[in-house]
């Protein structure tokens, strides 16, 4: 038999002025199971709480109803009080008779009636409350960072700095990412490599950081604090532990006509290669698509020249399994492919390049050693046209609906650098809007216009036509002077939209995190939790969450690290006990709940059941991981059989409330 105590608060006159609290206590004392019903001036005060605690002990209460202010205010206060008196905190219910009654009604009679009904509903609910215990699950003190660009490197360094082991998984042979390909950075124009490469070295030398380069995440299991991740270390045919990075093999390799992806295919590399001089780890990799030894068993030069015997043609993909407490996603971005934009002649004219290609053309370590030359005939360009928003802000399937954010600034940077280095070059920038919010950003753009005489023209380029004389006709509109222009250009640079890396979507599936329609990871809250995913224990760093420039990326990377460190500092995590649970005997195994769960908390397994006729049957049933479930209840309604229910807000509890209100 339930023994329920009801405690009605006056809240000074806040409640008592419009609700007859004595009458409420009196009315509720007649409810079934209620053994004590009292009112008090300030129930949340020290003495008010004592009153509740004493009543729990004195009457051996099995449930407590507090008629007071909103549960959002003092539910925790009273739960703690109950717990200190030996009653399970989840056996406390609050009837909100202040915010939702006394403060909004003026008529004492109707406010009192309503307060009684709200009290009755709480009593009806508390009858069905079950004691709940918050579970605990241990936290593995190791973090995984997926992606080794500037975002991943910064996150890893910060986590390592806090004293935790951290692994970086990078799919390319070296860490560094896009920033390693960039020449100069805005708005300060300092050299990207000069600020990035020390960080890469720092990461490789930090004893808490393990870099898995040329590797991919192939499977993720588990949940916050306890992920088990399988990492695929792709065969690079070079023993990483032996290779010294001397580069002799790359010099001797006879296969020299491999497009160099680090230089955006603007020059060639060898089949065995080190992507760039400052690569980390500085280890060679053999490209099996071009290596003659791997393709048809004829060559073996690299193996012969290698003094440490690091070449291993028999190497295969290896899989390693590791446990992590937190995962940070830093998969970054890529410029979109422009082959669908025929009007810009990108595919047919070598002198029409993307901005990232221009970075390489201007870089001292690039194909031309830092001299800006036309890719087609290696001559100096004298007229360069920049086209902004290529594929950004597009409503069609060719492009992306969002603003890529970084293009305005890097285009200003390119324009400025070219004008500085080659003052005889005319630079035109066709823009729709120039978007330069950010510290010193607009000043930077204005400098390009005012000091460097870059011609900014409001309007879009409509057509780019390569001409027989090697020049390029750029047909565009100038919306301010309302005329159509033709510019006889030597080079055209397209500011291609950026998109999330292609590996992000399969990764999101493995991590059960959410993505938007553009494949950017969705943050747990757009304003207040911008670096966490909705899935506990998964954090977001850098451009995988949305277009970002370097300072923003680094800021977010450190923020994600701080969140991950916050998790790793805990020995165990307390779980919210108000979570869903499935009655296996009733579960059909239909997967409806699994499909609506935003956290991937529901898994299925085949279990053996004893049937009423004593036979056994194997059935597929759902089980909820209480450490992952956040208790929204979406699954409980998706479940047709009613096998799924929610602790603290069970079907029967809510229906009891409905009944009490409607009675």
């Amino acid at each position: 038999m339930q023994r329920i105590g009801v405690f009605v608060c006056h809240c000074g006159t806040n409640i008592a002025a419009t609700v007859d609290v004595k009458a409420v206590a009196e009315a509720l004392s007649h409810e079934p199971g209620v053994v004590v019903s009292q009112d008090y001036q300030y129930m949340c005060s020290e003495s008010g709480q004592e009153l509740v605690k004493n009543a729990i002990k004195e009457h051996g209460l099995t449930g407590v109803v507090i008629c007071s202010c909103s549960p959002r205010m003092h539910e925790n206060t009273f739960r703690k009080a109950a717990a200190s008196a030996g009653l399970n905190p989840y056996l406390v219910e609050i009837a909100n008779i202040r915010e939702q009654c006394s403060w909004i009604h003026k008529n004492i009679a109707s406010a009192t009636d309503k307060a009684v009904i709200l009290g009755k509903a709480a009593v009806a609910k508390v009858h069905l409350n079950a004691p709940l215990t918050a579970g605990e699950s241990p936290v593995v003190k190791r973090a995984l960072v997926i992606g080794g660009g500037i975002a991943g490197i910064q996150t890893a360094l910060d986590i390592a700095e806090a004293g935790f082991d951290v692994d970086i998984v990078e799919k390319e042979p070296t860490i560094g990412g896009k920033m390693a390909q960039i020449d100069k950075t805005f708005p300060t124009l300092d050299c990207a490599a000069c600020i990035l490469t020390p960080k890469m070295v720092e990461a490789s030398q930090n004893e808490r950081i393990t870099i898995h380069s040329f590797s991919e995440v192939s499977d993720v299991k588990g949940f916050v604090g306890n992920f088990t991740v399988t990492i695929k270390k792709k065969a690079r045919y070079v023993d990483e532990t032996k290779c010294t990075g001397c580069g002799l093999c790359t010099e001797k390799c006879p296969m020299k006509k491999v497009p160099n992806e680090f230089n955006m295919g603007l020059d060639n590399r060898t089949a065995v290669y080190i992507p760039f001089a400052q690569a980390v780890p500085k280890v060679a990799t053999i490209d099996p698509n071009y290596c003659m030894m791997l393709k048809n068993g004829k060559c073996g030069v690299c193996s012969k020249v290698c003094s440490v015997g690091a070449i291993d043609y028999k190497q295969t993909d290896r899989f390693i399994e590791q446990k992590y407490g937190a995962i940070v996603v830093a998969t970054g971005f890529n410029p979109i492919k422009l082959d669908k934009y025929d009007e810009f002649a990108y595919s047919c004219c070598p002198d029409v390049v993307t901005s990232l290609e221009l970075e390489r053309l201007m870089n001292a370590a690039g194909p031309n050693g830092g001299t800006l030359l036309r890719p087609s005939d290696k001559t100096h360009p004298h007229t360069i046209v920049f086209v902004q928003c290529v594929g950004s802000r597009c409503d069609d399937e060719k492009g992306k609906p969002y603003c890529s954010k970084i293009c305005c600034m890097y285009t200003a940077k390119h324009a400025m650098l070219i004008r500085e280095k080659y003052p005889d070059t005319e630079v035109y920038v066709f823009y729709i809007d120039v978007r330069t919010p950010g510290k010193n950003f607009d000043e930077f753009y204005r400098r390009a216009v005012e000091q460097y005489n870059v011609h900014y023209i409001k309007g879009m380029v409509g057509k780019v036509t390569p001409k027989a004389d090697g020049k390029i006709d750029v047909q565009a509109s100038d919306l301010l002077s309302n005329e159509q222009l033709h510019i006889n250009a030597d080079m055209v640079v397209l500011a291609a939209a950026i998109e999330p890396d292609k590996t992000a979507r399969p990764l999101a599936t493995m991590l059960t995190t959410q993505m938007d329609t553009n494949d950017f990871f969705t943050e747990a809250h757009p304003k207040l939790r911008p670096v966490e995913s909705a899935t506990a224990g998964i954090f977001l760093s850098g451009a995988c969450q949305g277009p970002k420039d370097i300072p923003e990326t680094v800021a977010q990377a450190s923020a994600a690290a701080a969140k991950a460190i916050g998790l790793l500092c805990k020995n165990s995590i307390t779980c919210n006990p108000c979570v869903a649970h499935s009655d296996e005997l009733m579960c059909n195994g239909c997967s409806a709940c699994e499909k609506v769960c935003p956290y991937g908390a529901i898994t299925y397994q085949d279990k053996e059941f004893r049937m009423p006729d004593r036979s056994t049957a194997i059935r597929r049933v759902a089980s909820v991981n209480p450490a992952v479930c956040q208790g929204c209840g979406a699954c409980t309604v998706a479940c047709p059989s009613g096998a799924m229910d929610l602790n603290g807000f069970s079907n029967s509890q809510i229906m009891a409330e409905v009944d009490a209100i409607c009675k």
Partner: protein
Amino acid sequence: MNKNEKDWIDITSGVNVRKCMRCGKCSATCPSYDEMEYHPHQFVYMVEKGDIEPLLNSVSLYKCLTCFACVERCPRGVEPAKVIEAVRLTAVRKQGNNHLLPDQIPDMLDDDLPQQAIVTAFRKYTK
């Protein structure tokens, strides 16, 4: 501003002119640009404002080749050619009848006329 006319153009063209982000790519791509008094992007903007009267009286209406380059290139899917077409239809219907019947076209053809103009003329006048 004539609201009915604007609504009518919205309906007949099936175009949402508010999607325009004023990049001017339609005008940048237009082969008849120099012939026109009002250019494709101005059509879109003026229809959005409801400033249709000047368009109805402009020679620009008949300079559009309906080559659909602007439709193809518009990053926002605004389809300026359809707006121009709708304005043209409004002008044609205003005057009470169709000025050119399909049967009359063969007599008017001359050898120098580009093929595309013939095709687009049919597209224009057989509505």
